């Protein structure tokens, strides 16, 4: 039931349609950032990779959340430095995030909490393999070179260390949750 509830705006939606671009001014940082990506080529590469590795067994079923939205959410997550939950929530309320995700018209019932569930975003991320990731970066670089913005003539190579984050719940987190619970 929850799945039907959160996906229903992809099916029909209610109320008047708002033009998302009207609410996001041209100099808005997220709008400018989103306009740099060659979305059509990126989405085509993802779709081709997914169709090859995860073929659809049956034509039945509900239409999925567009690849364009999921890919933009994943990139936005790293641009604004937020969690899956937060970025999915912002897609529901933030017009700039909607613009970056390629949604040009806004129409959804007020009772709906999410456009995209964080679990869906996590599942999408899990399907990205190394070859696809390299291809996406190459597509972005090729688009920038074709536009004459960058040149690969002289390059710099370096490495940097990064720590593997711990997934374990720390004492501080447990204490924080315990303190927060009675107040709710």
């Amino acid at each position: 039931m929850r799945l039907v509830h959160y996906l229903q705006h992809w099916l029909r939606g209610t109320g008047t349609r708002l033009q998302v671009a009207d609410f996001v001014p041209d100099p808005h940082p997220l709008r400018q950032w989103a306009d740099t990506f060659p979305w059509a080529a990126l989405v085509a590469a993802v779709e081709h990779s997914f169709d090859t590795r995860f073929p659809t067994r049956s034509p039945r079923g509900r239409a999925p959340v567009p690849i364009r939205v999921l890919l933009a959410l994943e990139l936005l997550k790293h641009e604004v430095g937020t969690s899956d939950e937060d970025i999915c929530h912002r897609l529901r309320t933030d017009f700039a995030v909607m613009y970056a995700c390629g949604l040009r018209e806004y129409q959804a019932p007020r009772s709906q909490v999410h456009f995209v569930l964080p679990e869906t975003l996590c599942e999408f991320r899990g399907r990205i393999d190394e070859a696809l990731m390299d291809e996406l970066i190459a597509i972005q670089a090729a688009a920038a070179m074709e536009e004459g913005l960058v040149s690969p003539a002289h390059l710099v190579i370096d490495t940097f260390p990064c720590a593997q984050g711990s997934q374990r719940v720390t004492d501080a987190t447990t204490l924080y949750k315990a303190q927060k619970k009675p107040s709710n």
Partner: protein
Amino acid sequence: MRCFGRQCRGQGHVFVKLVRHTEQQLLELGQPITALGQQAQQLLGQATALSDSTRERLADAFNAAMSSHTHIRKQSTQLTQGKKLSHCKIVNAYDPTMAPILKGKSNCPAQFGRKPGLVSEPATGFIFANRVPEGNPCDASYVLPLLDKVQRAIERVRATPRLQVHSVAGDLGINDAALRQALHQRAILTVGIPKTIEPMQPHPSPEEVRDILNEAGLHRKRTPHQVHLACACGYSRPVVESHIASLLSRGAGQVRYKGPLGAMRQQGMTVMAHNGATLVRIRQQHMSKRAQKFRRLLGLRRRKIHEINNPKN
């Protein structure tokens, strides 16, 4: 008791006898795991209530756990016997692809994690490719795979004449004779890779340029102008730290997704987000004077296609 590190940085003390004693106890405790594992594997094969896919998934996870245990046991046995550990030692029981990062940490305790590599344009910071290898290989091993990725990106461009990589700059970590030779064979100048800790010459004389071209065997393939630019890139190589800082500000300093694939996904998405922000800066001409000059020399001038030349009218 042994001490590690330089005194001024705070020495780390390790109680060797205590470590060996504890390790011995753990080894004795884990002695029956191999026998129990074989029994569990037989029982899993006989479990008819499970579906084939579930049995296969459980068997895969079980085999992975047993192989990890074997590896850890081997390392612990060496520790109790006082033998020197191999280079790729286990630092995380759940992820054997992680390794100690010793780069730039000769005076401090080693960090544990991953060591992504990147190849970027020095003027603007646009990252053409990145690589997150398993373990902790030497820096020189990053160069050719990264350049292959750049080449694949170049092949996607439909512009003529075809773009080429003229030079590569780096730090002393990628100073390797075999690598230099491989780069020269690809007609790539290596003047930006230092051979000593001495500062590089940013403006070489005509004689020096001729020597550089002769040494690389690229006399007819690369021009003196390209050598000058390569020297300038090598001289200003430390700007790559600002590109890395930009990635770190986007959370690349800590991998939050699980395993090597998770690290690859996180670093890749961070690089793409960084590139988007870099392209915004380039379009808005928010660059340093040095970067603007470098772009002019490369012929990457801003085309004012949306601006009227004579706004007074």
